[in-house]
């Protein structure tokens, strides 16, 4: 972001895109877990374990949908899948790698 030319307004664009990715991820998370209540969780809720209860099945479904919708193969790029810590880490991971067409 720091190498963006002076005079452009990258923050607005990036923040807007991040919010859009987060909104889509909430919807996907609710779908793959079958839990509509997850649409409302805070962005920093842990996805694994007691947080959103993501497991190997729902996690795989989520990553498949992410690849289909955003063209980002998270499993191939993130050995430890640390990007799945929370909605906000996953959204940041995805927006850093997708949407180059909007630049």
């Amino acid at each position, binding site marked *: 972001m720091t190498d963006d030319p002076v005079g452009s307004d990258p923050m607005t664009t990036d923040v807007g895109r991040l919010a859009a990715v987060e909104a889509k991820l909430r919807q996907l998370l609710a779908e793959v877990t079958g839990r509509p209540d997850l649409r409302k969780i805070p962005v920093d809720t842990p996805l694994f374990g007691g947080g959103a*209860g993501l497991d*190997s099945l729902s996690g795989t479904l989520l*990553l498949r949908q992410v690849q289909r919708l955003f063209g980002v193969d998270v499993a191939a790029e993130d050995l430890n899948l640390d990007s799945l810590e929370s909605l906000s880490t996953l959204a940041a991971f995805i927006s850093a790698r997708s949407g180059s067409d909007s630049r």
Partner: protein
Amino acid sequence: MTTDADVAPQPGNAVIKCVVWDIDNTLLDGVYLEWAGEPPPADPVLAGVLRELGDRGILQALASRNPFEAAEYVRAVTGAEFASVECGWGSKAEAISRIAADLDIPADTIAFVDDDMVERAEVAAELPDVLVLTPEDAAEAADWPQFSPAVITAEARRRGELYAERRRRQAAASAFGGSRDDFLRQAGTRITISPAQLGDVPRLHELSVRTHQLNSGGQPMTEAELSGLLESPDHEVATLRMADDFGDDGLVGAAILARNGAVRAAAPPATKTLASITVPLIMMSCRALGRGALDALLTWTCRAAAAAGASELAVPCLVTDRNVPMRLALAAAGLRAAPGSVAADGRAVFARSLVGDLPELPGWVTVEGTR
């Protein structure tokens, strides 16, 4: 590579888990919709093949350009249980992809039988990993090695039934709407972790061959290798059995623990060393996917390794796009690999510290006399 499937079937070495059958002029001796009154009878030879393969634990599925009633009719006249059914006017390749997703099996474990050359060519072109067969090929398929699992275990013989139970469980789970753990509790889930016995060896071998999504090692183990580990004082082989109100899945998973060096289960806490315990293989049937079984086995493995005096658990895991579910479970259990540490053999070592508080096993898990 040719897309003409009629040259010859290309029998690979993969063990076939599911045969997807066409109906018209394949399983039926005629075309279902062309018979005004009574639909055509079952092809007697292929009906026999259906039964034989079913008894070997190979699943059957239907992909047909017919109304859904045709599938019910085929079930009635062949007496076979179909694990997945696709009836409609769309492409057969898409139907097979949906069946693969529904049953959670890779394309190279699927065979497709159709009398129509065009359908066969389309599937061969779209899904090159699928074994494409004519009905004449299929009549002989029972003699081919990829349709002949070396050992037919009790779990394998019940496989068709188990998938029917799975369908009912999934319908209940998607209607449930609460958390996974609440559903597992409500469904009466019972998991038992116990030391492997010699009688478990054929099933353990079968799991090592058949599991991919939830398999850390990525290499089948022979019965001799497994028996050797059962007798080795430096290894512990733990099995996981699973049942709930929908059915009993039997032995669905296992973990092999290797003690590195001096650590022994009998060591009193005072002699705790900094040694680690390695898990050369952890594997789980995809039937248990989404039902907390792998999470329970990893939690138990951490606790057992800590109880044996180890301060670290290490799981070397093949990193492929097929076993992403295994990597998700490792991440959820707190194991991490050094970034960029995938070795030339495709493996990375995922590890976690066992010092401090470890996760507890859920109430539906029973642990029996592991040493």
